[in-house]
């Protein structure tokens, strides 16, 4: 029981960050139907920006994370304007190839800029764990969980409670009609990319200090993000949130009670099952995304 509670807590902490990665990707997916292979690179970018700010410029830790999120958003917007906007109307294969190119170029750029040796981001939290009954957790992980919750709640409010969110959802549903209603569809696209990339950068900035920072770290993250999106359904905000948490807990329990060698397999078995039973994702409503 003691181990079960610890596994559950571990899974929740992990799932929160998967959710953050999934939300960013699902928004972009839902909006553009772009297979956004470069998503993982914004995760890596977030981690490196935090490292640069916190370790090299000695900026305050929380401020460094904010810098990373801002940097990720700006570059996400830039990527939309420079790479994707000129490709609007091109076939999905063309955009996919451009995204793969961006993925390879950024990863090798990071290798060139930072070298292959893993970096460790300093943080101000004590390393001794907080012990609550049978479970223990590092203060840094609690901070990350809190930050993830704030970001998810913030994203929810933005998408469901603001005029901008209404405009975004309208554009997701029907681009032409939204444009006819006077929505600046181009601007919404840029903002959505900025927002989605910013969330990926946030995940990298938050997980970087827990783990290590190295150029290929985004590959695994991108894989998880795609899994979450498939689980939750394309373009589905709540689906991505729940999908992330489910994937995190499933991996953790799978590793804990089946075999740690099959940790990632557990997640993929669930995805295969979901695709067999509910091909458009666990939480998808029929005909929602065009």
């Amino acid at each position, binding site marked *: 029981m003691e181990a079960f509670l610890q596994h559950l807590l*571990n899974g929740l902490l992990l799932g929160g960050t998967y959710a953050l990665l999934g939300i960013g990707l699902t928004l972009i997916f839902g909006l553009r139907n772009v297979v956004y292979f470069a998503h993982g690179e914004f995760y890596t970018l977030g981690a490196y920006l935090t490292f640069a700010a916190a370790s090299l410029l000695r900026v305050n830790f929380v401020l460094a994370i904010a810098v990373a999120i801002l940097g990720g958003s700006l570059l996400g917007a830039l990527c939309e304007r420079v790479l994707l906007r000129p490709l609007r109307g091109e076939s999905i294969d063309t955009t996919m190839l451009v995204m793969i190119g961006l993925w390879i170029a950024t990863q090798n750029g990071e290798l060139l800029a930072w070298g292959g040796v893993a970096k460790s981001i300093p943080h101000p939290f004590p390393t001794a764990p907080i012990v609550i009954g049978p479970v223990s957790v590092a203060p840094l992980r609690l901070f990350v969980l809190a930050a993830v919750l704030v970001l998810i709640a913030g994203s929810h409010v933005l998408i469901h409670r603001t005029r901008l969110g209404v405009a975004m959802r309208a554009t997701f549903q029907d681009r032409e009609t939204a444009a006819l209603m006077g929505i600046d569809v181009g601007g919404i696209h840029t903002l959505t990319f900025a927002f989605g990339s910013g969330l990926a950068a946030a995940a990298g900035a938050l997980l970087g200090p827990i783990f290590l920072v190295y150029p*290929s770290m985004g590959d*695994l993250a991108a894989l998880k993000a795609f899994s979450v999106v498939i689980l939750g359904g394309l373009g589905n905000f709540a689906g991505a949130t729940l999908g992330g948490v489910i994937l995190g807990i499933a991996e953790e329990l799978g590793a804990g009670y089946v075999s740690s060698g099959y940790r990632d397999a557990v997640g993929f078995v669930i995805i295969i099952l979901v695709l067999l039973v509910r091909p458009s994702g666990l939480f998808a409503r029929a005909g929602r995304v065009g």
Partner: protein
Amino acid sequence: MRRWVLTWIAPTSLALVIVSAGVAQQDPIKIGVIAPLSGPVAASGNYVRMGAEIARDWINARGGVHGRRVALLVEDNKSDPKEAAGAAEKLIARGQVPVLMGAWGSSMTLAAMPKLEEYGVPMVVETSSAASITKRGNPWVFRISPPSEMEALGLEKYLGALGIRQADFMAVNTDWGRGAVTAFGDMLRRHNAGIGAVEFMDQAATDMNAQLTKIRSAGGDTLFLTTSVEQITLVLKQAQELRVARRIITTGGSSSPSQLVKQAGAAAEDSYHIVFFMPWFPEAMPDPNLAKAFVDEWTRRGNPFEGLTEGFRGHDGIATIAEAIRIASRAEPQAIREALWKVSLMGLNGPIKFEKDGPAGRESGQSRPSIFLVQIKGGKAALPAFLRK
């Protein structure tokens, strides 16, 4: 006419002869190096490269081998076995190297090995620990690093002092990790120690909480940890977060205690590490002068100190190859292979000399490296209390 010949053609052709002779003399001996320069274990691969470069420069400063300079052709295997086979092929077929050193990880080395047989080119294995490397009957393989079995035997003499009653294992899910679990498990069973949880992790995994939670419930007194320094850092930090109170012993010699102190901080305190080079106390190495000179040169080049426990492998590998070429008197694969059997050399780790290993008639070469145990105490690598005089 005659005068014209003398003034123009003669000096020109003479100059050409001199130039071409000079080129022939300076045409360097190429040594292929396969190392993980990117990917999850990139740090280690780059340190091996730095060590190899020091060996190259030292050899060239002494006038090269039989008057020819030594040049390294380094190929990145991206920490990926598939890439390792491609790298070997590229170096041999396109680079025309007569001998290779590589490929750090056991899975990468095993993947590159069929190419050695295909093209008939010998390779000095500088890091890999999986037993199968020298057991497969590949006569082109010469290993200077210890297989996990030798490492386990090296630790055996300290078992009494360590007092291990029940051990748990955590290892990277590769040939190296799985081989280490078997080797150390067998050795411990011979001494009637219990084996608790055996957990594996993917090479790129970052969250090891599930495995550590299981190990915490298994209740052993010692955790054997076999993986790269990056993952050791993460495991040590996460073990501290989860209060996994264990004696931790890392195997494989790639733990880089100095890097752990830097990146894992207090979480690394008291952990034990099997290493094959001790840059903190070069005077305790088999050839103290060589060790001191290497540490000094490494530091002078601005290479990170924490890379020394890995970088020495590159030096010893290249030194072994250069010695074999010297004995062979020519840089041809078959001749180098035969000469490798005659190499007897003092490396940074200790004496290097190959013995036959594997199926009769197709033996690989295996040296008997020295094995050391250090402990992190007060943020520094030190000899464990029971080894201090």
